[in-house]
């Protein structure tokens, strides 16, 4: 590889992604200029496009956050310097946004809103397409086969742990309803792809305790055992199973 070529590319890369543009004499030492535009104006097209394009990506991928965080677009340049994209797909550009906001001391409900929206991006096309387990398949089982029935969340699922009411904020923005006041609340949100549509639901407290097992792969018998201290464990286990089947969020696949 030519050292001169490498130097040219490295200069342009730094000139485009740096916090400040190089002065015109420096730009003109590397780039041609003419009557139509000087070297700085030509470089500006690339500097502007780099941030503007990826700001669009952040806003499109985090529409609810953008609705309540009007500075999101203005933060993009700093975000890209803190977490430069490394993946060929723009899908991954926002992967560290929640962490970036946390590092800058953003309010917890906005950090968690970013995390929830990131999980929805990942569920959109992450995880293989599968045929979910349904009531018909379960109804065909013999009663003695129920305890060993393998259960696992579909591959597209994501679990988001919240310490605020960010889920309620998401819903309020979606419905154009008044926003809930930021407040502490411990809860878990399950995000998954149902057919081609991304959905999410805040889990009941006992359901949230089962979620790690269902993420890793478990059996219906183990689910029943984990619910042993519930007031009516068998009824509760069955109710949850039917809820998950109707939500198309399970596959019958054992743990790896």
């Amino acid at each position, binding site marked *: 590889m030519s050292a001169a*070529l490498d130097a040219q590319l490295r200069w342009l890369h730094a000139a485009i992604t740096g916090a400040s543009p190089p002065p015109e004499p420096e730009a003109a030492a590397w780039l041609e200029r003419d009557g139509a535009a000087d070297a700085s104006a030509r470089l500006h097209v690339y500097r502007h496009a780099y941030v503007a394009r990826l700001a669009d990506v952040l806003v499109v991928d985090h529409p609810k956050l953008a609705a309540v965080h009007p500075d999101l677009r203005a933060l993009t340049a700093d975000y890209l310097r803190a977490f430069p994209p490394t993946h060929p797909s723009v899908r991954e550009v926002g992967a560290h946004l929640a962490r970036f906001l946390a590092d800058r001391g953003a309010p917890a409900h906005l950090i968690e809103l970013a995390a929830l929206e990131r999980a929805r991006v990942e569920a959109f096309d992450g995880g293989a397409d599968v045929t979910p387990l349904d009531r018909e398949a379960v109804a065909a089982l013999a009663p003695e086969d129920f305890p060993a029935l393998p259960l696992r969340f579909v591959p597209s699922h994501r679990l988001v742990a919240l310490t605020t009411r960010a889920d309620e904020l998401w819903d309020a923005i979606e419905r154009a309803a008044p926003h809930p006041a930021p407040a502490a609340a411990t809860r878990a949100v399950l995000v998954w792809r149902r057919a081609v549509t991304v959905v999410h639901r805040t889990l009941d407290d006992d359901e949230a305790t089962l979620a790690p097992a269902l993420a890793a792969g478990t059996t219906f018998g183990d689910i029943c055992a984990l619910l042993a201290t519930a007031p009516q464990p068998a009824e509760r286990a069955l109710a949850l199973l039917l809820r998950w089947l109707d939500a198309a969020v399970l596959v019958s696949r054992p743990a790896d």
Partner: protein
Amino acid sequence: MRGPVDGVDWFEVITENLMVDGGNPRRVAREVRAHHPVVLHGVGLSIGSTDPLDARYLDRLAALCDELEPALVSDHLCWTTLGGHNTHDLLPMPYTEAALAHVAARVAAVQERLGRRILLENPSTYAVYRGAELTEAAFLAELATRADCGLLLDVNNVYVSCTNHGWDARAYLASLPAARVGYLHLAGHSHGETLLIDTHDAPVIEEVWALYAEAVRRFPDAATCLERDDDIPALDVLVAELSRARAVAAEHAA
């Protein structure tokens, strides 16, 4: 989409959007492929970078080729990644002998990995490095010969780059080897403060239609793809624009 799309012969799909495990992008691509030929068009190969070629990217590209059996596989004469940092922009190459040798070797390696010829597109450019030893068109022509690759000629990009740099667009077309031009792009652009910007968000302008007529005279065997990435109108509007391309090609192709 349910069944073939009337008025459209084939589709171009963005490669990187399909480098995912599942979901709607892959479902739509499969449905399109069931009824039409497709071309895989990448924006992330980064063929001109001085970073090593991304083996994982090539693995996924090869898997997509196996799955979709595209008629053609294309990307851009540009670089996007340096030091592992992906700018997600099609950044210009220096038009030097050193860069030509570098890109030609990498194209050959990619073609060896994929087991097929690829095509490289002329990008819209807004800056040219000092010390150029070849014109952009001469660079592309020599690259196609040395690397035994094809060319994807974006007529709008020729217009944008030639306007931005004061080049002669018809001389540009005349410099390209006809046998290497596999297909053409048509698109719209916008006006920046001082330069034309390739935005793919508008109809093709009359000056580009005129240049397209020249292109189909020179490259009569090349198919045409109408590109629109943003502000996408109703399908019948795009099909009408495509019909104009067909009419121009019928009138001007030898």
